[in-house]
């Protein structure tokens, strides 16, 4: 019985494995909503640090790797893991954890106890990133 419960847990939402993280919710992500989120700079947009050349946004960052064609390099579980908490892959990463409160220090009152994205927003952004299959024509 405990083994069965463990199996169920392993197949449950947000379960981690070597390949990344399973979906956080039962509702598939919406790529259009993900794109809209990315273009909203008040929401700690990916574009602050990453570039997506197909998007119509002038001020894009160069801190992290460009996300053009990212879906040809990473699957949905790997992408989700990197957004939720990239420290699992590299403890020293500069990438903020979008859906984890683990180890956070001195968070401003306004944001304490909150993650950057909620679970469905993570799914939406993953769904959008999965549409980035093409390397840009430079």
């Amino acid at each position, binding site marked *: 019985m405990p083994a069965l419960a463990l199996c169920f847990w392993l197949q449950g939402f947000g379960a981690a494995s070597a390949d990344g993280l399973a979906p956080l919710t039962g509702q598939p992500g919406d790529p259009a909503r993900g794109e809209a989120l990315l273009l909203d*700079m008040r929401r*700690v947009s990916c*574009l*602050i*640090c990453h570039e997506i050349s197909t998007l119509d946004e*002038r*001020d*894009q*960052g*160069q*801190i992290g790797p460009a996300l053009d064609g990212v879906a040809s390099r990473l699957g949905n579980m790997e992408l989700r893991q990197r957004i939720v908490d990239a420290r699992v892959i590299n403890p020293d990463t*500069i990438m*903020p*954890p979008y859906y984890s409160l683990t*180890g*956070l*220090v*001195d*968070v*401003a*009152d*306004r*944001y304490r106890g*909150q993650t*950057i994205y909620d679970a469905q927003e993570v799914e939406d952004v993953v769904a959008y990133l999965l549409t980035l299959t093409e390397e840009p024509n430079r």
Partner: protein
Amino acid sequence: MRRRCLSALLAIAFCLPVAAEEPRSGYSYMEPATQAMQDDDFLNPGFFLVDEGLRLWRQPMGPTGQSCADCHGPVDREMKGVAARYPVLDAGTGKLVNLERKIQLETARMGAEPLAYESPETVALTTLISYQSRGMPMQPEIPPQLQPFLDRGRQIYEQRRGQLNLSCPQCHVDHAGDKLRGDVISQGQVNAFPIYRLLWGEPGTRHRMFEWCMQSIRARPFERGSDEFIELELYLVQRGAGLMIEAPGVRR
């Protein structure tokens, strides 16, 4: 013997922290138009603080009717180089003080109305005194008793914090020169303060900038004028030692 010396030297060199950076003023990351604004005292929007500071320097304060100038003499002679070596240990209180705190302590000693940490008067006097060191290298004196303050400052600098879980060096060391959105990240040096910041449309101190940075990563900032921020300031002055004082600087 010589070989042994050489290998000892090499051993020391390899023990040094990797990527020991050459300090680089925020000035060098700025648009030419912003640089030109700082370079011309008539265009520099922070320069009025020097004049305002000079007025305050000569203004009688407190019941004795004395001014800063009455005891210290001419500011351009007596305050030359002072800002370049602050923060220092204050003999009277035994605390680490920066210029703003020292000015507060001194005016309190004169029995004057207490100046708030970032009152226009404090910022003006800080700018006046910093301006007397313009063109001189930041050169903090770190006697052994200052080491614990410096260590705490470094800890604050290196602590990841806030909802974005970032430390200062993750951006200002690892990514200085890279674009964050439309802006280039600087090394976060403090040699130009107080600055006139175009984004604020007004002048600000080192601690106001620390606060702004911490708010940007959604962290709870320390108070301006707090021991923590002065320790961080000491660490940053030491980190940027050798950079020329630019006060009053202009930044975007």
